[in-house]
C-alpha cells in the first residue's frame, strides 16, 4: 500500500530504503527500537545491510566506515545513545561524511525514562561533540514527516557532506497515522571523494587530523562556510494561524502539536494566537522570527519539553524587542490540554490583557 497506517518509527525505517540507504548500524534503545526492528525485518529482504552493533559508539563508527565508502547510511537511537555517538559525529562532521542520525528523544538526564522529552535540543542542535561544528537538524511532528524528513535528511547529508539529524521524540515515534510513501527509490551518485576499494578511488583519504594549526583552521573555515550556506538555503518552518497573531507560540515536534490544540481553543475564546514551528532546528529560522518580532507580534512563548533549551534561540531571534515567555514540562511529563491553555491564557493576560 502506498498509504499505510503506521508508526512514526516504522515509517523512518521504510523511508530510509526509499532514500537509497543501503546500510544501517544501530543498538536497541526504547523508544527508538521499532526502527531497528523494522530494519532487521526489511533490510535483509531487499539485500541491504544491517548490523546490530555492540554499542552506539560502534554503530556510529560503522556509519563512518560505510560513509567513507560513499554509501547512504543511517543509525538511530535515543538520548543516552546519542550522547555516546557524539565523538563519532564530530569526526564525521570534520571529515565531511554524510550520514543520517535519528534521535527519538526520551526523558533525561541519566537513564531518565522512556517518555517524551525534547531535552536533546542542545546536544543535537548546537554540535554536541567537540569542536566547532553543527549538523542540520530536521524536527518532524508526525509519521508522515518522519518519512518525508528522513528522505530529505539523506539528500541534505549528501548535498552538504555532513551528518544530518532527524530529531523526534517518544510520542512521534510511537504514534500511528496514515503515511503516504513515495513509490520510487532515490538514485545515489558516486562521490569523487569516497573510497570504493578500487583503483580509481585508491588515492582518496578520509581524515579529520591536521597537525598544522593553519591547516586545521582551514578545515574549520570550510566547515563554517558550509554552515553559512546551510543557514542561507535550508531554513524550514511552518506557520498556523499566524496572519493576525499577537501572541506567537514557538514550538517544534510533539510540543507543536500540543500547542496547536491549545491554540484552537484559545482562538475560540477570541485570543489572537498563532503557532510558529521551526522545522529545521539548525539552521534555526532566526531571521523569520526576528522579522515577526519587528512586525505586529507582541509576545512570544517558547513551549517545549525541556528546561528551555530552545528558548535561548527564540530570545536571540527576538533580541529583546518583544517579551519572550517559556513553558515546558520535563521528566516525560506532558502538559495537559487545560494546563497549557491556562498557562498561555495567563501569559496573554499578563502582557496583552
Amino acid at each position: 500500500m502506498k498509504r499505510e497506517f503506521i508508526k512514526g518509527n516504522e515509517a523512518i525505517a521504510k523511508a530510509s530504503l526509499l532514500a537509497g540507504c543501503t546500510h544501517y548500524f544501530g543498538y536497541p534503545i526504547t523508544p527508538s527500537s521499532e526502527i531497528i526492528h523494522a530494519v532487521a525485518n526489511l533490510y535483509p529482504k531487499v539485500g541491504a545491510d544491517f548490523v546490530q552493533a555492540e554499542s552506539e559508539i560502534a554503530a556510529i563508527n560503522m556509519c563512518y566506515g560505510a560513509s567513507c565508502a560513499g554509501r547512504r547510511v543511517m543509525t538511530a537511537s535515543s538520548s543516552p545513545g546519542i550522547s555516546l555517538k557524539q565523538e563519532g559525529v564530530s569526526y564525521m562532521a570534520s571529515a565531511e561524511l554524510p550520514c543520517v542520525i535519528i534521535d527519538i528523544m526520551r526523558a533525561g538526564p541519566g537513564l531518565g525514562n522512556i517518555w517524551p522529552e525534547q531535552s536533546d535540543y542542545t546536544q543535537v542542535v548546537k554540535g554536541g561533540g567537540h569542536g566547532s561544528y553543527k549538523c542540520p537538524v530536521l524536527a518532524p511532528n508526525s509519521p508522515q514527516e518522519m518519512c518525508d524528513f528522513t528522505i530529505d535528511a539523506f539528500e541534505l547529508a549528501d548535498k552538504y557532506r555532513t551528518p544530518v539529524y532527524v530529531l523526534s521524540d517518544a510520542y512521534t515515534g510511537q504514534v500511528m497515522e496514515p503515511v503516504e510513501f513515495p513509490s520510487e527509490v532515490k538514485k545515489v551518485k558516486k562521490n569523487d571523494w569516497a573510497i570504493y576499494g578500487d583503483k580509481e578511488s585508491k588515492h582518496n583519504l578520509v581524515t579529520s587530523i591536521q597537525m598544522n594549526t593553519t591547516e586545521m583552521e582551514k578545515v574549520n573555515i570550510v566547515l563554517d562556510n558550509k554552515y553559512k550556506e546551510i543557514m542561507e538555503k535550508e531554513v524550514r518552518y511552518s506557520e498556523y494561524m499566524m496572519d493576525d497573531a499577537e501572541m506567537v507560540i514557538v514550538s517544534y515536534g510533539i510540543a507543536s502539536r500540543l500547542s496547536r490544540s491549545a491554540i484552537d481553543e484559545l482562538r475560540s475564546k477570541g485570543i489572537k494566537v498563532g503557532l510558529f514551528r521551526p522545522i529545521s532546528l539548525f539552521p534555526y529560522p532566526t531571521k523569520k522570527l526576528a522579522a515577526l518580532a519587528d512586525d505586529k507580534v507582541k509576545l512570544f512563548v517558547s513551549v517545549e519539553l525541556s528546561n528551555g533549551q530552545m528558548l535561548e534561540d527564540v530570545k536571540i531571534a527576538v533580541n529583546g524587542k518583544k517579551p519572550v515567555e517559556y513553558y515546558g514540562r520535563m521528566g516525560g511529563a506532558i502538559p495537559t490540554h487545560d494546563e497549557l491553555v491556562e498557562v498561555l491564557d495567563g501569559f496573554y493576560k499578563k502582557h496583552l490583557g
Partner: protein
Amino acid sequence: MQEVLGKPEGFVDNFVRKPGDYPKVTHYCPGCGHGRVHKLIAEAMADLEISDKTVLISPVGCTVFAYYYFDCGNIQSAHGRAPAVGTGVGRSNPGSITISYQGDGDLGAIGTAEIIHAANRGENMTVIFVNNGIYGMTGGQMAPTTLEGQVTTTTPTGRDIDEAGHPMRMSEMIATLEAPVFVERTAVTDTKNIMKTRKAIRKALKSQKDGYGFSFVEILSSCPIGWKMKPVAANQRITDEMVPYFPLKNFKDEIENRSPRPTKTVDPDPNKIIEVLGVDKDERLFKKDQSFIDNFKDQHVRIAGFGGQGVLLAGTTLGYLGMETGLNTTWLPSYGPEMRGGTANCHIVLSNKEVGSPLVEKASTLIAMNQPSLNEFGVTVKPGGLIVINSSTVEGKYTERDDVTCLYIPMNEIAESLGVMQAANMAALTAYLAYSKAFDVDMLTSLIKANFKKKTLIEKNVAVIQKTYEYVKENYLN
C-alpha cells in the same frame, strides 16, 4: 625519523601527504617497530596485488599518519574504533581488503569492545595489532599490555598488578572466539622473527583476499622513546622481557578447515524495495465520500483493558477505518514498562481537521474491557460521552457518573459463543460504532475482510460483529 630502505611497491613513491621537508623518511622515531611492520604490510599488498582494492584504517596512536605511506585507500578513524569503521567500509565494498592497524592502547583498552565484536562477527578484515606495551603517541603511559613492574609515565614506580591488573594477552582472547580464521603473535626483533612476521601478515591478508573473514596478527614491537632505551637495547628487551609473557606462536589457523564465504554484495534492486515495502499500490477500501468527511464529528476514543484482550488492535482497526475513509487519524499506544503490569490502553483521535495532540485526555468514548480500566478512565469521559463496558468482566453498573451513557456488552460471552475468544475486541468496536454511528458497522466488516489473512478467522469475526450489532440494536437502539 626512519628511512625506508628498498621501498616496496605498497608504499607511495614520495610521502607527499607528509608535511615538512623530508618526503622520503617516515615520521617514526629511530628504532621504532612501526616502520618495519609498515614495510612488511606494503610488501604483502604489492605481492598479493591487492593494493588497488585495499582500504587501510589508522585510528589514533603513533600510526595515525599511516596514510602518508600506504598506496591504497586510507581512512583515519577515532581512537579504538577502527574495527567498527572496518565493519562499515568492508561491508560497503564487498570483495575489497580491509586492514585495521591498531596499537595496544587502541585495541586493548579504549577499543576492546569493537575488536572483540568485529572478530566475533568474523568481519572480512585483517587486524595488525602492534603491541609495544606502552602508549607511544601520548607520552609513554601504561598500556593494557605494559608488563608487571614496567615504569611508564602513569606507573612511575612500575606497574603494580594489584592496582592495574595483569598485562592483557589479546591474541589469546581473540583466539577463543569461533569466527576468526587466523590468529598469530610474532615479533619484529631479528631477521628470523621478521620473516615469521612477514609470513603471518601474508597469510592473514591472503586469507582475507580469499574470503575467509577475520584474521589477526599481533606483533611485538619496540618503542625506544616510550621505553627510554636505545634502539638496540629496546629490541633486546622484547626478546628478554616481552616474549616470555607474550609467547610467539600461532593460536589459531583454521584456513585449511574452512571454506571461503561468498562475497555478499549490497546492491538492493529498487524494484525489489518497492515490492517489499508495498508502496506501489494505491488502493482505498472505500470510495471517498466528501460529505461523510465534512459531516464527521471528532472522535476522541480511549480503549483500555488487560494485555491480550486485543486493546491495541481494536485501536489500530479504528485507525485504519479512519484512514480508509480519508479522515485524519492518530493512534497512540501505552508502551514499554507501562504495559508490564498486564494492562494496555491506547488513544485514538479521528477528525476531518488536522489533529493536534494525539493524546486523548478527555474521551468522547471510553471502551473499558475490564474493571481497572473503567475505574481509571471512567472519570476522563466528557459529559455526554459514551462508555462501552465489557459486562463479562465488569460487575454491576457504573454509578460514578450520571452524565454519560453506558453500554453494557457481554463481549467475552459473545465472542466465546462463536468460538473466537480473541474477538471480544471486535464486539467492543462494533458496539461503539453501532451506537455512536461514527462509521457504518458494515465498514468494519469490509475492513476485517480486507485486512485479515485467515478465512476462518474472518468468518468468525464477522459473526461476532453481527451478533454484537443485534445485541446493541435489541438493547440500546430504538
